[in-house]
């Protein structure tokens, strides 16, 4: 205790506490800067790590892949028939495919769903396995871009035929043909875990094949791995994808790195992929879904393999060898995927950072909010007042009401989305402090207390969110931070009109909807107009993605409190009776 006592006496002797309290706004801003710096240094040499296979049993590419030679003719034979199905109806396509699958002993069934389209799936029972586990090979008939997945489907059926000849399987193999990689696949996965009659045990891993076009060749392979709600497949799953593809000589691209940039391994290339991986993970389900997202949530590790380009040196059969090698690798697992990392950020196909390296960044941001909360509590004339007062109670009441309101609005919006109205209302809310100037609505103490509650809520929310969905917490913390700079306006505030304008601008910038909208337009070329809102809502409805709910309840709630606090106020000290009563 001696040391602590000495420190405490020094702190008191030098008057550090008041100094720190007066510096709170600065320290809070520094926390945000620290958060950005922690992420910013990750791409530097020595900060990231090289990927490695953590689970020894996997042994990717240790065995020779036999999906070659005459299998090539068979893939092309199937393809010649699938090309003709381009204009066939889903029912016809599934019927023909189902017949092919049955020829080599696969049990098939069709999952009927009138909203998302029928899904054909077949179960190949592993003769030597105990039938309790399975691996899924999923092929959307039409890929994320709406292209007919000809090569993918040909590979799917040829691989299923090829797999059925191998005696090595310890897990059943399920082949799934869905209409699209989004709602249709997701609804099949859900049905598999609720109501399907033909099942093949618990699904351990899933690979989605996406190779549109009829050409034989492709340039490089892209791997998509982002799951919904911050879930990622085990890093080992991504690793075996990268390892087996590179073993076949292919280049692997992550997060849309173009072909000519794949080889690059510089600070900026790593930073770019890091930023993309944060962005894509935060907006997973909202952006285009490639199929792997559909499996997230049931302890299923899934990745999407996509062939890109049309002239490269690689052939459709060599693309098929990647899922073959991956399946044989997963087949070796005696346990579930549990080694390696479930939370990570990729910087390159062979570089990653683990959660312990990047988590402090959002922790710093959430500390920033906590300090901002303390700032609005202490840095006003009333910090001597007792904590339990009418104003604290009022601020908590306001918080609760806005929590309920935002929750209701978010749910209503899911069923009847009107993004324009939502944006207009929010812009009006931002501007009303300026419009209603001169009309004091409340005491300034309430304004301070409101902000204190809002930032505390935001800090707590970020802290809990960063454990499960780091990218979303990071993005939200960063984009909503301007609202901590909002000032209380009283009659004796200097440069009152400038502060009003500043407040409005800060509110505009930190509004969840406006900020998300601007971010979607500026940082991602996939979005245009207001479609980010439609996609947020459809992700919530079709995929069970809770990004929309977090935006509304987690971000909009404190924002509303801050917006209310920006209204003109009356100084509490003027009203001497009230002040005395409080004291």
């Amino acid at each position, binding site marked *: *205790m001696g040391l602590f006592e000495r420190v405490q006496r020094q702190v008191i002797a030098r008057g550090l506490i008041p100094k720190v309290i007066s510096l709170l706004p600065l320290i809070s801003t520094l926390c945000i800067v620290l958060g950005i710096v922690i992420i910013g240094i990750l791409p530097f040499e020595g900060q990231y790590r090289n990927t490695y296979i953590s689970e020894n049993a996997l042994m990717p590419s240790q065995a020779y892949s036999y999906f070659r030679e*005459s299998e090539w*003719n068979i893939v092309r034979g199937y393809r010649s028939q699938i090309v003709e199905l381009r204009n066939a109806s889903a029912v016809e396509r599934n019927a023909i495919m189902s017949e092919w699958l049955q020829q080599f002993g696969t049990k098939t069934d069709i999952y009927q769903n009138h909203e998302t389209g029928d899904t054909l799936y077949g179960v190949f029972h592993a003769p030597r396995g*105990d039938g*309790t586990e399975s691996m899924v090979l999923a092929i959307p008939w039409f890929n994320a871009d709406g292209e007919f997945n000809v090569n993918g489907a040909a590979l799917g059926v040829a691989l299923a035929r090829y797999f059925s000849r191998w*005696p090595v399987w310890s897990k059943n193999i399920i082949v799934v043909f869905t209409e699209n990689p989004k709602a249709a696949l997701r609804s099949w996965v859900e049905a598999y875990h609720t109501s*399907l009659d033909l099942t093949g*045990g618990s699904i351990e891993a899933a690979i989605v094949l996406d190779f549109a076009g009829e050409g034989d060749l492709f340039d490089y392979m892209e791997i998509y791995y982002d799951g919904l709600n911050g879930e990622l497949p085990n890093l080992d799953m991504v690793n075996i994808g990268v390892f087996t593809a590179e073993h076949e000589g292919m280049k692997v691209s992550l997060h849309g790195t173009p072909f000519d940039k794949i080889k690059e391994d510089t600070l900026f290339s790593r930073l770019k992929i890091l930023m993309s991986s944060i962005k894509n993970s935060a907006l997973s389900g909202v952006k285009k879904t490639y199929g792997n997202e559909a499996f997230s949530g049931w302890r299923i590790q899934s990745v999407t393999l996509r062939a890109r380009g049309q002239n490269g040196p690689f052939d459709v059969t060599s693309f098929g060898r990647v899922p073959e090698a991956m399946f044989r690798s997963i087949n070796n697992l005696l346990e579930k995927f549990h080694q390696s990392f479930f939370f990570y950020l990729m910087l390159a196909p062979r570089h990653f950072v683990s959660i312990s390296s990047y988590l402090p960044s959002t922790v710093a941001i959430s500390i920033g909010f906590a300090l901002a909360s303390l700032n609005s509590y202490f840095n006003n004339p009333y910090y001597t007042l007792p904590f339990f007062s009418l104003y604290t109670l009022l601020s908590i009441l306001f918080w609760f009401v806005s929590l309920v309101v935002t929750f209701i609005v978010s749910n209503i919006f899911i069923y009847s989305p009107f993004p324009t109205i939502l944006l207009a209302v929010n812009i009006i809310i931002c501007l009303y402090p300026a419009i209603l100037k001169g009309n004091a609505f409340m005491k300034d103490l309430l304004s301070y207390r409101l902000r204190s509650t809002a930032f505390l809520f935001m800090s707590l929310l970020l802290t809990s969110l960063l454990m499960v969905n780091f990218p979303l917490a990071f993005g939200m913390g960063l984009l909503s931070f301007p609202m901590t700079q909002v000032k209380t306006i009283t009659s004796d505030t200097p440069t009152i009109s400038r502060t009003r304008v500043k407040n409005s601008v800060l509110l505009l910038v930190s509004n969840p909807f406006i900020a998300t909208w601007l971010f979607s337009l500026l940082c991602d070329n996939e979005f245009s107009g207001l479609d980010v809102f439609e996609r947020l809502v459809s992700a919530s409805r079709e995929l069970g993605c809770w990004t929309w709910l977090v935006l509304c309840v987690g971000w909009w709630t404190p924002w509303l409190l801050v917006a209310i606090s920006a209204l003109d106020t009356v100084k509490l000290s003027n009203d001497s009776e009230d002040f005395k009563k409080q004291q």
Partner: protein
Amino acid sequence: MRSGPIATICCFILNVVLFAQATELNVTSSSINDHDTNPSLELLVDTDDKTNSITSNDIEDVRVDDINERENFNVITINDDIQYPFNEKLLIRPLPNNNLLASFAFEMESETFIPGHDESRSDQYRHFTVFPKAIEAMLGSTSTRQLHLRFTRGFWDAESWGRLPHDGFKSGGSGVELWAIIEAGSQKEAFDQWKTLANSLSGLFCASINFIESSRTTYPVKSFQPKSTEEGLPIFGGDETKNNKLYLLRASLANEPICTENLTPLLKLLPTRGKSGISSLLDGHKVFDSMWHSLSIDVTTHCDFNTQTCKYDMDAEVDMVIHVPYTLARNEHPIPRPTPNSELRCDLTKPYDIYQCFPLPESNSLSFEVSEIFGKPIRGSNLISNNPSKVCVDIGDNHENNSWEALLKVNGSHFGTDDNCFDLENKDDYDIYISSSNTNEIGRHSEKEEDVPLYVSRSLTGYGQDRGGLRTVFTNPTNDTIRAVYFESLPWFMRLYLSTMKLESDAAGAGLDLHDVITSVHYVTAIDHKRPTHLEYTIEIPAGTSLAITCQFDKALLQFAEYPPDANHGFEIESAVVTILKPWSYQIRTSTLLLSLSTPDFSMPYNVIIITSTVLGLIYGSLYNLLVKKLVTIEEADEIASQVGLKSLITRLKKKFI
């Protein structure tokens, strides 16, 4: 609902221990006389005087192997008239899609014995011929009247292959399954005997049967009942003082892999020991390379009421399904390499050239020899049995249009018979040649025999680690209403809620209520760590209907020592057993399931200890300081501080010297 899970099967009671010592002596002497008249036993005697030198040691455990070893002795050669109660038969039946079912059946009987006869006495002996001594000793010491053991693995494709061999009564669920009828004075005593039995079998069959404990054992009430056609099971200790009853106990180990270790002990139980007769075909590499395989042992006690003697009957079965083209291809290349381009079978009606080939289904003409499937020919007949070894190929009657042909090959010559059954009568190597020009046409004895009365599948539903659901789908493809008993034994950590049981039915079964289909339920709730959930219900499935019965459950947390020390794979849930009572009797099992429980991070206790210790240390330190230290003001403290310590010492020294 909590009715006691006691299954009492009272049949008829045999009077025992009523024979006087003199009678026993008579029996002994009479059996010696029997031996005199039976030339087959003479080989056991290697002294000149055979009448008075037979001791129990000489008679024990003599088999064919020993015959050769003893040839050097002064022994009489084997007489052809040896007749031991042993039968063996191999049934080969083609299944659709180029599959082949091979059923090896071995039947043997023990010598008769007198129940309650004390064999530990020095003047008593037991005579063993073809019945394995290990099994008999085990049955005797645990008072087991019936023993059923199953090792099964693989997926029986009922939709395509039809009914299970022996109507499913000789195959188990994936893993090991054991049930027995044990005579005991109380259920506790029966359970103790059961544990002993399981441990002995575990050692005998190199399987983890010793993991059978109370938390896995159930006492079935409606399923697994002995067949009513039998004359009944004897109770040996049935006098008034002991009041013994028969108890039916059953347990299953779903996560037990079946391998050569289990087959070899089974072969060792046969009098031929896998060295001659049809059992010479049984090679672990081939048996376990099959699509589905099942090893089974059934032992029953039969008593003759008139002579007051009993004997054991043992049936051992090895059934397997082999996909013929794969097995033949594997003989050439162990790895299923891509088909060479020249051997590709392409659909010529579709685009076909050197670049593309739309594959045709597998060829439907087959021609192979059994030795190609099993790696070796049959090494002669068993030579010790009442009947010669028999091989039957079930391809229907021989007629002009039968696309199948089966021939017996001996010494390079082929023989055929009318019913395609072959008796192997001597020591030659035998082989069976089977060929078919159209494997899709399979001669069936009757249509009825191939009809599967019911398809059952079961799956786990739900999301997350804290709860889940169990969904069982019953599909009745027949035109009759099916009455069946559904038996399920679930581990205690699956906390089933019977109240959540719901019925989902297809269009044909619309309007059905749960109470319409489930007529009676026997339910024994689980006790944590001690007893599994035991659920048995009688269900009636209307013709052509598919029903799904769902039930919700919670997942309990295990104690840390209960997690298996090895790989975190999940917990296997054993198969459910469906016994069909009407219109004909049949048994099917569902596949096993994998239940994933939340598994703690086992390094966590270490962190908890560290944190707890730190907090405790802080509290203790503060409290101790408060208790033992004097409370002073800061000024006083500063003054005291200026008088003690290094700093003040230096100051004082300075003052002194300077």
